[in-house]
């Protein structure tokens, strides 16, 4: 056994966990790790702000299914990570955040750049470690990856005091770890599965509601098998887009505040809901008491605390989604009686045929939906779309059909503006051979736009489409609808000139004033090997409809600002 430093032990631990790339920004208290990085084969991608480093790690994780790693120094470096960590936590994304800390003798003395990051992130991480001896590091790294990537995934932070990064010790690398307070339950109870099969087969109007858990569990194929066996329509949550191909005849798209109207209408009429890997977010369900009130609900999730948290359900099943769906299929195939669902299928077709997209929205509300549809048309099915947060995200939700899992990356739980661009960079690092596009608004893009430096310096070409309405559009839409058009703090002005801005970074900037121009620009961007930003001026008055106002049931859809239902 040879003596190595804490920093070397950390990097060896990361390497053994399969880490080949980390995203970060150095500072005083993490310098020993950065020094050791020079001798490691792990690639380091330099962010220009720690928040972006965390989002990059998150985008990497969501695109690849493997934990993403970000590194920052103590104090402000660590606190800058917090938004990114909270974003990953809200969307169950496995990231490992490594922070420097002041040396152990100076902890608790209010030292320079000292900050209790473990205390700060405790509510937004699965766990946070602070080893106090270098020899603890191998075990801590192993535990961190186990906790982050198993069960319901989520962020884990490792806070490393500066002296233990430097000090050497005999490192005992464990083969496997056992954490006595952590044993995720991953197999379903067979009786519950049998009951679920009975409920589904004997229902008249079943529907499947597929969430992020289906994607995390890599269970899209199994979900499709269940849907096709039952011939049941499938709706998704916002984060669940891609768990079921949206060009499939059984797909109705996402439910929720800005869900597809056919999805919202159909789930209101169903008599049995199979909710898979979802957490009953208020943005998906609308009013909890109105949601599924005529339906018998089966809820499968790996996190027991999600069952019954927001909504009491008839049949809760704690399990990994994939394993549960597999046994559900087997159980359903053993049953002989299967209620006829043709009437229901007819009804679903009828609902679908009643939706005329031309009726949505006010004014010339078609332009932004056309841009989004054009992106889909030009992007291969394995191309990745990330979004920012705001109207851009909702246009994407409504009009961008996701075909494959892990090709739709968006901040849903926390709703973090500035997420999409760095997440796109992380996704591109994970999947260098597929085109990655960030669907952005001008407000969101400006929050992390300095990541353009990372794109250019590290040669990571992504495409950014800015739906530029010169406002904080979603807030403005709400002010228009609910605050009597009293616009407060939302006007951004036509600032900056985005083409000039991105050109200053050495990236390619293009203007698109019409759908024709957009098509030309986007085709150019896809074949370009340099990051391209397409600035699309759009009207701020183009509001996102349909819309279920907050606090209402999913059957109370507004189709325009006049309140037409």
């Amino acid at each position, binding site marked *: 056994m040879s003596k190595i430093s804490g920093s070397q032990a950390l990097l060896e631990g990361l390497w053994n966990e399969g880490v080949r790339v980390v995203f970060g920004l150095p500072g005083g208290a993490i310098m020993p790790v950065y020094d050791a990085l020079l001798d490691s084969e792990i690639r380091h991608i330099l962010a220009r702000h720690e928040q972006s480093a965390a989002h990059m790690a998150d985008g990497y994780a969501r695109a690849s299914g493997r934990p993403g790693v970000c590194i920052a120094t103590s104090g402000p470096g660590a606190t800058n990570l917090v938004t990114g960590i909270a974003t990953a936590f809200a969307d169950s994304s496995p990231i490992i955040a490594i922070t420097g800390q002041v040396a152990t003798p100076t902890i608790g003395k209010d030292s320079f750049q000292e900050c209790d990051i473990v205390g700060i992130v405790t509510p937004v991480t699965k766990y946070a470690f602070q080893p106090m001896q270098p020899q603890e590091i191998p075990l801590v790294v192993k535990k961190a990856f186990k*906790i982050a990537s198993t069960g319901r995934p989520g962020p884990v932070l490792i806070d490393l005091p500066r002296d233990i990064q430097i000090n050497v010790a005999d490192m005992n690398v464990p083969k496997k770890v056992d954490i006595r*307070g*952590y044993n995720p339950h991953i197999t379903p109870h067979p009786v519950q599965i049998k009951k679920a099969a009975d409920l589904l087969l004997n229902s008249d109007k079943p529907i499947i509601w597929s969430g992020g858990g289906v994607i995390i569990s890599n269970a899209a194929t199994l979900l499709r098998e269940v849907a096709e066996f039952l011939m049941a329509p499938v709706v998704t949550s916002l984060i669940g887009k891609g768990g079921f191909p949206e060009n499939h005849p059984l797909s109705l798209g996402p439910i929720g505040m800005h869900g597809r109207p056919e999805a919202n209408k159909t789930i209101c009429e169903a008599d049995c809901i199979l909710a898979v890997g979802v957490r009953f977010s208020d943005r998906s369900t609308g009013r909890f008491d109105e949601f599924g009130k005529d339906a018998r609900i089966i809820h499968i999730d790996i996190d027991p*605390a999600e*069952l*019954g*948290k927001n909504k009491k359900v008839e049949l809760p099943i704690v399990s990994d989604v994939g394993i549960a769906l597999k046994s559900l299929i087997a159980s359903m195939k053993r049953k002989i009686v299967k209620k006829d669902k043709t009437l229901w299928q007819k009804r679903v077709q009828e609902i679908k045929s009643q939706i005329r997209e031309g009726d949505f929205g006010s004014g010339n509300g078609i332009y932004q939906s056309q841009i989004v549809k054009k992106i889909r048309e030009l992007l291969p099915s394995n191309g990745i779309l990330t979004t920012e947060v705001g109207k851009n995200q909702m246009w994407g939700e409504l009009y961008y059909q996701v075909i494959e899992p892990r090709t739709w990356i968006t901040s849903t739980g926390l709703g973090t503006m500035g997420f999409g661009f760095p997440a796109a960079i992380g996704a591109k690092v994970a999947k260098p051979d597929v085109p990655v596009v960030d669907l952005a608004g001008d407000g969101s893009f400006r929050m992390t736009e300095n990541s353009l430096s990372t794109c250019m310096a590290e040669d990571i070409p992504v495409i950014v489409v800015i739906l530029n309405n010169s406002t904080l559009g979603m807030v403005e839409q709400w002010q228009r609808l609910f605050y009597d058009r009293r616009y407060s703090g939302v006007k951004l002005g036509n600032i900056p000139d985005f083409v000039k801005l991105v050109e200053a970074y050495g990236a390619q900037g293009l203007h698109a004033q019409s759908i024709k121009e957009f098509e030309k620009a986007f085709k150019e961007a896809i074949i370009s090997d340099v990051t391209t930003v397409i600035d699309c001026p759009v009207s701020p008055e183009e509001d996102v409809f349909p819309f279920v106002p907050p606090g209402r049931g999913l059957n109370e859809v507004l189709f325009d600002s006049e309140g037409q239902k």
Partner: protein
Amino acid sequence: MMENTFILSTVVENKPGVLFRVANMFRRRGFNIDSISVGPIEENGLSKMTITIYGDRDVAEQTVKQMSKLIDVVKVQVFDYEDTVQRELALIKIQFSSNKSLSELTNYCSIFRNRVIDVSPGSMIVEVTGTPEKIDAFIDIVSGYGIKEMARTGITALQRGTKK
């Protein structure tokens, strides 16, 4: 739904930061801790945290699930108050103005099987062990004399019978 007192009997890792994580979870979810007591148990490196909460069964259930999610929490059991034996300890400093009061107080102490552990001119300290109700009842009776100071430990509890 009916509100009740529930007792969470939990086994947790005995290391720095665990109480913070538990308290933080309660704060974040908006649950209230009525009382809490912590002490090491027979198994190495573990502590027992006994927490009483007041709420309906849904709150109790959600609390158990959120507690179980904490990595440092090894085991969580929830008991209805009635299914457990509980003990709490209180130290109460009571003032008295006359020998008559002193003898009355000593009398009450012997009725409640309390121990007088210190007497100074004008005040005495009484040790009360028992169920929280017994302690409340004793406090009721002596409060007329004037309680100068009091410290209560919070409940510690075990489930009745052979179940573990």
